[in-house]
């Protein structure tokens, strides 16, 4: 009897250990490498080209293969979507020799497939074969699953058609972190293209303020100066304006090239208000007290301060000499560390008439965004 209980408890212990071990292994991801991640197929319609990819298991596990369609998002990123009823195109032309595999540690497996391209088909097509582990469910943690999207890029030899597109919603957006030129670009053709977009910003006098390159968020993350735009897709493009901009009328002129095709230039006129906002709106410059002299001259020194816990820049207007007045600031541009001070000298001369108070617009850079703040000159008794 005792021996029977001893054997039973041994068996129970073995089962318990086996269960806990299997639970532990279930929380670790099966690990694979996949190659190639991108399969280019240049073919003619009506053909049935074959392709293959290789999976190597770094640890034992089961994988499944599913066909996914691709969609380009407004940000320029690609989204992989499972198939739905009624889907057509390349996703329906792909056949694989198997829809899954069980691999031992270190095992390498070649999976073969074929494209059944219908006749009289044109254009450029994309689809993905998703190689993923069989789902693991966790009830008490964040489960991780890794999947590899093997992209099939099919270019048909019979493809014809020109690249064409259009730019819309060209404007300047004022964000907390800076001013940006933004727009939407639509690829109206049946071919993918690399977009180069550049916007010239000019003031009302025609002076070029800055030339800004626009790219999608996806291209920006990849540090690319061109954006890939897929057929019949609209993406958002954006570029940071580094220079300070005065409030007033601005003229934006966008030059776009899609592949080798130079597109029609787009021009818009916008009224821009760069009045200080957010934290910068609290910034106050001291009033400069001016007084009447015989020569209609006023020379003043005033101190500017940085009340923030970050570095700021101040840029004063260029020296001006015209019929009615002359003025200059020295220095013209300063950088102030948190809590820092600096003395500025303002010289003014009124050529015809009496001296008078004035409001100067000063550029303040907080983080990477420029704001306009006002500097008032006043009489002593004001």
């Amino acid at each position, binding site marked *: 009897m005792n021996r029977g209980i001893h054997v039973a408890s041994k068996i129970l212990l073995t089962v318990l250990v086996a269960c806990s071990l299997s639970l532990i292994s279930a929380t670790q991801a099966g690990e694979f*490498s996949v190659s190639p991640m*991108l399969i280019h197929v240049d073919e003619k319609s009506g053909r049935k080209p074959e392709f293959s990819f290789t999976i190597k298991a770094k640890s034992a596990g089961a994988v499944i293969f599913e066909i996914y369609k691709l969609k380009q998002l407004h940000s320029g990123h690609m989204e992989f979507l499972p198939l739905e009823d009624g889907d057509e195109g390349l996703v329906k032309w792909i056949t694989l020799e198997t829809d899954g595999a069980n691999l031992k540690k270190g095992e390498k497996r070649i999976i073969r497939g074929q494209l059944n391209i219908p006749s009289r088909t044109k254009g450029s097509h994309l689809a993905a074969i998703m190689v993923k582990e069989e789902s693991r469910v966790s009830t008490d943690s964040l489960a991780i*699953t890794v999947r590899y999207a093997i992209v099939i890029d099919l270019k048909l030899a019979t493809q014809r058609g020109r690249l064409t597109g259009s730019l819309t919603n060209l404007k300047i957006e004022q964000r907390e972190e800076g001013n940006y030129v933004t727009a939407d670009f639509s690829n109206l053709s049946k071919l993918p293209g690399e977009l180069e977009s550049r916007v010239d910003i000019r003031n009302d006098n025609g002076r070029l303020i800055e030339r800004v390159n626009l790219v999608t968020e996806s291209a920006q993350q990849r540090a690319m100066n061109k954006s890939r735009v897929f057929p019949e897709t609209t993406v958002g493009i954006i570029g940071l304006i580094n220079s300070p901009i005065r409030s007033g009328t601005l003229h934006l002129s966008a030059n776009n090239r899609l592949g080798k095709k130079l597109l029609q230039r787009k021009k818009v006129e916008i009224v821009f208000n760069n009045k200080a906002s957010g934290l910068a709106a609290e910034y106050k410059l001291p009033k400069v007290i001016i007084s009447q002299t015989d020569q209609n001259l006023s020379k003043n020194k005033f101190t500017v301060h940085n009340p923030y816990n970050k570095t700021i820049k101040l840029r004063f207007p260029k020296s001006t000499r015209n019929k009615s007045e002359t003025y200059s600031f020295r220095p013209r541009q300063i950088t102030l560390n948190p809590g820092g001070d600096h003395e500025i000298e303002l010289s003014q001369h009124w050529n015809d008439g009496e001296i008078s108070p004035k409001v100067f617009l000063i550029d303040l850079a907080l983080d990477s965004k420029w704001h306009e703040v006002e500097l008032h000159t006043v009489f002593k008794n004001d």
Partner: protein
Amino acid sequence: MNKKLSKISKGVLLSLGLVMTSQASAEGNLDVKTSTANLTIGLYATLTGLDNFQMTKINGSPTYTGGDLFSLATNGAVRVTATTVALSGTTVVPSLTIDSGTNVVDTASNVVTSSNYQLDASANLSGINELAAGNYSSLITLTVSAI
């Protein structure tokens, strides 16, 4: 006589052949063929080292955080995108970052790289008053792609 003639003609023919051969050699009229060998290496990627993890509460805050390190080896430009769904039975979707940036990381093109990255998840439960005590789970998917 005939023997002499045939010897002479043989000699002439041989001389002619030698002259032609030497001329051909002098002119460099040799048949040269070339062939080109091509090698295409496919883009590969392997992501390893990730395990399930739990999010724990930050003291004095309604935020739960957790994370894990992973390695990515590739021989070109690939993109890893982290996505997730709501915690089971809730509408709370954890926020994901890779290396404290966005939920996307890109590797450089034309370069063989093997680097470590930190995947972090956080969920802010402020304003969520009616979650019962217990475990909540979700699934994070890391997609490795060439585009």
